């Protein structure tokens, strides 16, 4: 029964992505056509790798990495609170409320932030009245605004897997840890957090990957300064009318995502094995004593 969905994915996902890879090796014959196949070469990749676009690449990577990290930091205590501390009677409702932002359009939400942080918006007025700042807020169309926007837009994608991870955690584990003399901090860092690791990894992937391809948030809140790789792809396909270079940039974007995920995955594994090795020694010492 899965074959209709399988065929659907092949026809409208695998083939189109493969088409992109093929076009990225093609060429643009003249100003009137967007692409042509043949004359296979790496020229488009050379264009896509041009040093002119290096700042866009580093900017995308920076916004995505910092965004993922901030999402993790602010979602961790929240998801823990939601899954463990909140009265179970209200848990369902509160979890549902996290999703409410999803039911309004992504773009409209971002425009909402534009209204809030604009120099004559009420965040600015409020902070001026309170005396935090003495000039209108200059946040809109800066990298900070883009950072705020992406954290906001992708936060629920971090909260949900973290919630699931903490929710599945057996309370007996925490109690056992406390019975064995661990304090609250140690219980959280050495029991709850490691057990929630699959959720943390899932959340980071769910935030990082779409964030790398996002350019809408950057366009609404970042103006010209918020250059993202996705924007570059869109421009090559749109006003640039050069699909081979656009395709090469899209392939580059995917390669960058895979590379970053691979590097951080490897770092995580190394860190885990080091931590495990260190902890194992402690336990052995206690057993022999």
């Amino acid at each position, binding site marked *: *029964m*899965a074959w*209709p*969905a*399988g065929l*659907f*994915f092949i026809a*409208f*996902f*695998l*083939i*189109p*992505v493969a*088409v*992109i890879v093929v*076009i990225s090796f093609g060429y643009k014959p003249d100003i009137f056509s*967007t692409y042509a196949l043949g004359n296979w070469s790496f020229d488009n990749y050379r264009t896509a790798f041009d040093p002119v676009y290096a700042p866009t690449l580093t900017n995308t990577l920076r916004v995505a990495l910092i965004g993922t990290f901030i999402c993790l930091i*602010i979602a961790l205590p*929240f998801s*823990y609170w939601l899954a463990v*501390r*909140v009265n179970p*009677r209200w848990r*369902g*409702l*509160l*979890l*549902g409320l996290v*999703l*409410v*932002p*999803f*039911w*309004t*359009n*992504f*773009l*409209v*939400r971002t*425009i*909402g932030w534009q209204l*809030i942080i604009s120099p004559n918006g009420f965040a600015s007025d409020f902070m001026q009245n309170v005396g935090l700042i003495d000039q209108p807020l200059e946040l809109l169309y800066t990298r900070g605004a883009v950072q705020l926007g992406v954290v*906001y837009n992708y936060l*629920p994608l971090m909260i949900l*897997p973290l*919630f*699931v991870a903490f929710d599945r955690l057996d309370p007996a584990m925490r109690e056992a840890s406390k019975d064995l003399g661990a304090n609250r901090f140690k219980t959280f860092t050495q029991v709850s957090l490691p057990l929630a690791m699959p959720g943390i990894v899932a959340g980071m992937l769910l935030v990082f990957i*779409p964030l790398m*391809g996002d*350019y*809408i948030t950057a366009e*609404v809140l970042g103006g010209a300064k918020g250059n993202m790789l*996705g924007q570059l792809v*869109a421009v090559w*396909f749109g006003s640039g009318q050069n*699909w081979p270079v*656009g395709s090469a940039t*899209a392939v580059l*974007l*995917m390669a960058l995502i895979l590379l970053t995920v691979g590097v951080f995955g490897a770092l995580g594994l190394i860190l885990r094995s080091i931590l495990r090795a260190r902890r194992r020694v402690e336990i052995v010492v206690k057993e022999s004593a």
Partner: protein
Amino acid sequence: MTTMESTRAATKSPIVEKRKRRDWTNGLLNVWGVLMYLFLFAPIFVIIAFSFNTGRLLTSWNGFGFEGYEAFFNNPNAQRAVWVSVQAGFMAALIATVLGTMAGIALARRPGKWVGIFLALVAVVLVTPEIVDAVGLLPWYVRLGEDWNLVAFGNGLVRLVISHAIFATAVVALIVRARLAGLDEALEESAADLYAPPFRRFTQITLPLVMPAVLAGALLSFTLSLDNTIISSFVSTPGYTPWPVYVFSSLRSALRPEIASVSTLMFALTLVAIGLVALVLRRGGDSSGDIAKTMTGT
């Protein structure tokens, strides 16, 4: 029982001590929770407030009034965009729900080597950035529609429906699979033992069992479609501009208050739809926690 009571009595003071400290971190976490909800809702409240802006531009507050709502009812382009979005959302949700439910049931009930391959495919669909899908689909539709004369793929609505249904199908398949994986297969087996033919077994046992997941998946597919901006802006054709693309293009010219008004109306409608689905799920006997979990696909 008695031992527990005695230990409780013996260690009474440390427990009281712990209560107090727990209250302290609880308080901190409660404050954090409230702040997070304020953060999550801030732009929505602002949009709702600004939908009553009487100014010509959305961004500069002029006064309170219903001009934004009136403007929408006098703007055929905006109405058409909303209508295209709603149509695309319904059809994409229908396709995604049918294909995804079938795939999800097969994934949970027909184990085999293919399950791994299929799940890998689903994972790739879910993690591919939208912009990559978008630029892949555009030349593909052009090829199908113009070079191979499959006229349907030149139609903007067909393009939107297919593009939106891809991601949603993957989501529905996962939700349905998760729901069915948690249910005992013996229910279907006993129906077979009682001589229910395969089709009746499917319609009277399997389908009612997965219904909450199917409904949640359909709703999620619909909202994913309404939300989709990047792919839509690439594949849409003149005459079939969906609502997000309309907003995106007016971002470059001028944002009018009616954008906030329409968003507020659509937000209210979605809330009603979610309420209805939650009601249906509650009739099915799920607790509010289960409902939220089903709706979030966890």
